[in-house]
């Protein structure tokens, strides 16, 4: 996505897209026989109604959205249609759980670091197959990443009923991680953990790498025009595509590992209710800018966090939020296209006048 004049492209357009989506979504609630205002109030209350809601719900929920949002933003900037963040997240969670439950002889901090590294590697490995298929055989990554999401979910389901199942073999979930491989809380008494800081630091780091380094320049060049990048002779397109694809998988995998080490402390089926798809809405709302992924992730953290309260107090099904996310994507796309056309019309008009 092209960045235009700062305030409009970065703030006004996404805000308008978000407001428009909520409006359409409110109408859908009204059509479904719900009271949109009551639902909205319940949602807001659940998301930002108290310090606890903000710290222990919204910000905690935002962590996987920021990390998977970074995965999608990086991929899209590199011209890689990675729709597989969901599967990469599961692969990361699986790897993190496996390493977290084993290697218990390692000292705590080192063990935790290894757990997070394993998550990133797991996600990257899950992205490796579609990445190689694209780079070596020219197979488009959209469908391959999508179907691998289902395979990853089946793999996790097998793991928690097989090799990683808890020792009593009753529930389809893993044993809980030991205390010293859990991400500690930022403030005692809240559920907000250090994963939030990690996600924010990585967002800044990715912003810096993409915008301020040679590697980042290459990624953006390949993403905006692989042909130009290749013909210019200075950029080897395939390694850049492959690297960006794997790094994208690593971010998504880390999201899974941070979820396990910071929130659930165990692997179970349904660990992610579609975070990897929400990530697309997060990244697009952020204009594919890693820094903007932080507020966009928090926004969606609030939306998903508030959805629970909305279900309890206004009996609106939480699944409705998935529809809202789709509306956000469509509104962002439409406004972006509108801006482009309006910009072109204004420019053409100017040319005629000259």
């Amino acid at each position, binding site marked *: 996505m092209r960045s235009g004049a700062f305030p409009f492209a970065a703030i006004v357009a996404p805000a308008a897209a978000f407001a428009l989506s909520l409006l359409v979504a409110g109408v859908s609630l009204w059509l*479904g026989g*719900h009271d949109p205002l009551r639902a909205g109030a319940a949602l807001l209350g659940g998301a930002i109604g108290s310090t606890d809601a903000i710290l222990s719900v919204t910000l905690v929920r935002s962590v996987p959205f920021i990390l998977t949002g970074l995965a999608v933003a990086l991929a899209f900037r590199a011209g890689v249609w990675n*729709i597989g963040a969901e599967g990469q997240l599961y692969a990361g969670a699986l790897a993190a759980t496996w390493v977290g439950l084993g290697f218990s002889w390692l000292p705590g901090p080192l063990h935790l670091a290894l757990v997070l590294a394993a998550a990133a590697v797991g996600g990257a490995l899950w992205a490796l197959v579609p990445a190689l*298929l694209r780079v070596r055989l020219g197979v488009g990554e959209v*469908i391959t990443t999508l*179907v691998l999401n289902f395979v990853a979910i089946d793999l996790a389901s097998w793991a928690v009923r097989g090799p990683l199942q808890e020792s009593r073999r009753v529930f389809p979930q893993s044993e809980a991680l030991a205390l010293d491989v859990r991400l500690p809380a930022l403030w005692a008494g809240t559920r907000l953990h250090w994963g939030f800081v990690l996600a924010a630091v990585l967002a800044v780091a990715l912003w810096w790498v993409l915008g301020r380094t040679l590697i980042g320049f290459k990624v953006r060049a390949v993403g905006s025009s692989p042909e130009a990048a290749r013909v210019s002779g200075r950029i080897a397109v395939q390694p850049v595509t492959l690297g960006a694809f794997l790094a994208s998988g690593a971010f998504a995998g880390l999201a899974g590992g941070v979820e396990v080490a910071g929130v659930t402390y165990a692997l179970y089926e349904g660990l992610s209710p579609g975070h990897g798809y929400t990530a697309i809405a997060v990244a697009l709302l952020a204009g594919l800018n890693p820094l903007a992924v932080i507020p966009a992730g928090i926004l969606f953290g609030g939306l998903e966090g508030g959805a629970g309260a909305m279900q309890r107090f206004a009996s609106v099904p939480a*699944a*409705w939020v998935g529809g809202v996310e789709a509306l956000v994507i469509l509104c962002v796309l439409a406004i972006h296209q*509108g801006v482009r056309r309006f910009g072109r019309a204004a420019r053409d008009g100017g040319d005629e006048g000259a």
Partner: protein
Amino acid sequence: MSEIIAAFLEASVRLGAPLALAALGESITERSGVINIGLEGSIIAGALASALGALAWGAGWGVGAGAVAGLVAAAVFALFALGLRCDQIITGTAVTMGGLGFTAAAYESRFGATGTALSLPTLGPVTIPLLSDLPLVGRAFFAQAPTVYLAYLLAPALWLYLNRTGWGLELRATGEEPAAAEAAGVRVVRTRVLATLFGGALAGVAGAHLALAHAGTFGEGMSAGRGFIAIAVVVLGRWNPLGVLAAALLFGAATALQFFLQTLGLDLPYQLFLALPYLLTLLALAGWVGRARAPAALGKPWPEPT
């Protein structure tokens, strides 16, 4: 043993049919130059609408309601991807997300989150005389729901349309050389919109088949990636309706395998069988993409952005 094989073949056809319907529609959409990942959204919308329609007016009307819902989902895609010329992949992903989210919410609103499974009027099998008496394959192929016969009939009909009619030629020109087609007087955008709506309606019928002929109930997310598999089926069938039907039946067989795990007495994790159709999708794309040529203008916006 022959009973087991006959039952396996029956399940293969029953599970292949929704893939065939969705993929036949998508093959027409793609021949016009549009790739609609929102197919999955059309399938799930079709499944829910067919369930509601069947409860209100009976199974036959349920199929009609499914087709309309699939068409509406595809119309949203067409509005954004063809009308506003937004990126087709992202638009399709959004339509799928919206379809899954809104159908789940509507279902829970109407029937409660943890209610007992909905029991629907089903689309029963129609037995074709003579053909259904064939040994082994007879009942598997010719004692099926009417939606299955729709797939059988559509495959040759669409092949004739594409290869033997002027309209079919216009559609193919739209997908290969939109500029030349436009110059020859073909209305490219209108052709693409109609092809997309047709694909969406068929995906809606595929959803109706899932709910009314296969499951007899509606479940959140019951489309289970079939829209994405259908897109691989189109590639495997080389964008040719006859090949698409054959490829869909192959994927149906892969999906049916899971139900015969116990019958065959194999001690493998059932998740492996659940994953089989998705793994087969990967293999099909890896092995075939290079050999089959996609329509030249597939996924590209029209008119081209300046």
